[in-house]
């Protein structure tokens, strides 16, 4: 079992993707199937960007076992008012600045959903959000 941990600062787009690239390197070294690495990278990147774009700060914990990967992405932030709505393609509350960078198309959570075997979202408005994602090998 390998355990990786990263802290993410809200608003710091220059480092977005760092955790995802480190996890990718680890999975490559372990010889995990390319298609599965792709799925994990897409999901983790979107979760990472959501902390940067929507929350104050967050934490990513990745557990790699012989049978799969579990990613727990939690943040202190505004939380999600309506998870069903947030899961819809095109729904976004991203700021104008974030949209101008090409984020905020409302495709992040749908991307996550399509690329993992299991997604759980726990959220409390005004407190924060925790995504638990599982991808089997």
């Amino acid at each position, binding site marked *: 079992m390998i355990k990786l941990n990263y802290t993410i600062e809200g608003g710091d*787009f*220059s480092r*977005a*993707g760092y955790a*995802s*690239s480190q996890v*990718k390197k680890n999975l490559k070294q372990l010889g995990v199937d390319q298609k599965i690495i*792709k799925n994990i*990278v*897409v999901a983790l*990147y*979107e979760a990472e*960007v959501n902390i940067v774009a929507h929350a104050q700060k967050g934490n990513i914990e990745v557990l790699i076992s012989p049978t799969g990967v579990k990613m727990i992405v939690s943040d202190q932030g505004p939380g999600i008012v309506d998870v069903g709505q947030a899961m819809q393609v095109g729904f976004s509350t991203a700021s104008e600045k974030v949209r101008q*960078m*090409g*984020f905020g*198309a409302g*495709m*992040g959570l*749908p*991307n996550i959903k*399509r*690329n993992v075997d299991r997604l759980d979202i726990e959220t409390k408005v005004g407190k924060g959000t925790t995504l638990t994602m599982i991808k089997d090998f």
Partner: protein
Amino acid sequence: MKVTELVEKLQLKVFTASAGLENEITGGYVSDLLSDVMGHAAEGNAWLTLQNHLNVVAIASLRELACVILVKNIEPPADVIQKAIAEDVAILGSSEQTFELAGKLYSILT
């Protein structure tokens, strides 16, 4: 086709020295929405965009795209060039608009 060959065929500007020039191009993807590229571009794609910040490099590297082609004479800032070279991502530039450039790329690759 290799990135170097495409540079020659389309007379592209190379911003990132020799980074990624030997990559094999399998197809193209045109989008300025980063999650769209993240979720739907394929490995080895040449990515046409007008976005030119650090996250473009992160996505190209994470998704193993063949190269990034900036349209309309857009020039990447120094931090983008530096990160792209470090991550072996080729960032290229064209004076053409997306429509014309995508058309040429399509006919070259198909």
